[in-house]
């Protein structure tokens, strides 16, 4: 019983990270109706970049974020501006196929540069620090820190979208690209900013995840799937829903892992498919226009 409770708390805390992956993905989808298949690989690439920066400068993973986040965001802007923007406007197919190809390219570049060995970011003593409630139930400091960071980032995104002119431009572009353009919004720039913001968010999530678990060049697709499951479970277009979706996914995986060691991912997928079957609009459906 305590074991299950422990696992559920772990799952809940991990779910915050999934929600961040999802928030990045959902931001792109919301603004430009594009599903970025390379999303997971970009998360993993951010983790590798953090690893590289840490090795070069001899700093810790948290400090490395000061370099990783702006660089990854700038990369995202460039990627959107000079590649992905050209795939938009001719249906779903071009962006899907180009990002699939991008995903394969990223995986193989990472494989060549960093080999297939698993890596992990070393964060020092904080990795094992924990608060113990009693002899059996304890919560790690790091997972709590990750969760709190996730909630803060999602709250910040929410504020950005609904309280700033920047967010208004995003939402306007999302609602009607052509009219937004007529109102003087430069959509290509907005799209690139959205990608930059998306990758900035997932860079943080990627570094946190890489402190917690091993990663290799082929970890990306699974992260994309987790993010996607969190979005659909939470209901498209709702950031807080996405947080709940991520948490549900984390808990489902934790419970699955309790039942059988090899089962966490299956349990997460089954939870996703069940939500899709019973509540196709997700748990927090946005009122459709």
């Amino acid at each position, binding site marked *: 019983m305590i074991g299950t409770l422990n696992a559920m708390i772990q799952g809940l805390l991990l779910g915050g990270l999934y929600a961040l992956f999802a928030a990045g993905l959902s931001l792109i*989808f919301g603004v430009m*109706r*594009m*599903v970025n*298949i390379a999303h997971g690989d970009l998360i993993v690439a951010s983790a590798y970049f953090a690893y590289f920066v840490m090795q070069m400068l001899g700093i810790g993973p948290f400090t490395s974020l000061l370099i990783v986040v702006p660089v990854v965001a700038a990369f995202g802007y460039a990627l959107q501006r000079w*590649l992905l923007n*050209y*795939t938009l406007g*001719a249906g*779903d*197919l*071009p*962006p*899907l*196929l*180009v990002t*699939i*190809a*991008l995903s*394969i*390219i990223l995986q*193989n*570049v990472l*494989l*060549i540069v960093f080999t297939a060995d698993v890596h992990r970011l070393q964060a020092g003593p904080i990795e094992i620090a924990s608060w113990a409630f009693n002899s059996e139930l304890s919560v790690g400091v790091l997972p709590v820190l990750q969760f709190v960071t996730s909630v803060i980032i999602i709250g910040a995104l929410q504020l950005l979208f609904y309280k700033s002119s920047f967010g208004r431009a995003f939402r306007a572009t999302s609602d009607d690209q052509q009219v937004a353009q007529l109102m003087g919004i430069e959509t290509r720039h907005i799209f690139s900013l959205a990608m930059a913001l998306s990758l900035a968010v997932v860079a943080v999530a990627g570094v946190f995840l890489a402190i917690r678990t091993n990663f290799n060049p082929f970890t990306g*697709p*699974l992260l*994309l*799937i987790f993010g*996607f*499951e969190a979005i*659909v479970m939470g209901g498209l277009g709702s950031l807080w829903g996405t947080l709940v979706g991520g948490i549900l996914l984390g808990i489902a995986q934790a419970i699955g892992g309790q039942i*059988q060691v*090899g*089962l966490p*991912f*299956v349990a997460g*997928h*089954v939870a*996703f*498919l069940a939500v*899709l*079957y019973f509540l*196709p609009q997700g748990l927090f459906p946005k009122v459709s226009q």
Partner: protein
Amino acid sequence: MNAAVAVADLPLKVIRGDRVTHLGMTFWTILVIVLAFGPFWADRQSLRLLSEILSYVALASLWNLLAGFAGLVSVGQQTFVGIGGYTLYLFALGLGVNPLLGLPVAAVVGGIASVPIFLLLQRLRGPQFTIGSWVVAEVFLQIAQQLAVVGGGSGISLPAAVVRSIAQSRDAREFLIYWGFLAITVVVVGGIVMLLRSRYGLALTAIRDNEMAARSNGMDVGRIRLVAFVVAAILTSATGSMIFLQKLSITPFSAFSMNNWTVYIIFMTVIGGIGRVEGPIIGVAIFFLLRQYLADLASTYLIILGVVAILIMLKWPKGIWGSIADRYGWQLFPLARRLVRLTGPQATGSP
């Protein structure tokens, strides 16, 4: 009703192809005959390579049917390759019968499995369908790893006794399997041509060109997509069963491999020409030609393919074949409908 009568009275005729199409059909016929005699002119290794090429023509053509025509971009077709492979193994091992009999069983099981999968994935719109199809493939991969009856993570092999029940001599077995691949590929490509010539084909082409317009003309897009998805699943499972019959062993990662059964196929189809029947065939040829020279490069080869696919998507979104065909109006299969006046100058119709 009146309109139909009026058209029938006009001195008009619908023709399906021109000289290039006739040349094309002659070429395909000769190619199939030459391939059918493969065991007489090719050695064992070449036959294996030809089998692999044929299996990729089948898989890529089926993926193209979904992505290029039905607007269903799946990255989870490995689900059906794996279902086909595992079904054949379970059937042959469970009943101890000739594994070739497992081929139709695999096709049926794949077809049955595809209906609930489609009904579930249909709830995801557009690009979301793509990731959903991936999740389904992941579920099958994970389940296959956990199931003891299929050997879990280490998979299963076909014992020698079962293999011998295909045919006594090794040559005869290899020939039968090779002809199996050839038959499936002919059925797949021929079936797609027939499907595209039928009412469903008109509907699929309409959906490819403009989904909104297809809907507003009263097409039941959901049902047409279901038909395409189930047909693709049946034939993908059949192809998968043959692929693993030839390999003599199956593991979850080989059966539900995203790289082998989806990524390569996407590259082939995009490079050759998505949304054309000829596209995947040309793409497979290019893929294997490049592989002869670049296979040693392993991951560099994949990077090159990825870059080429991106360039093609951006510069020639119709692929190599699509761009050539558009420019010269070539069609290697009789798919176009051209309205011809029986007397007087030719009327131009839309392909």
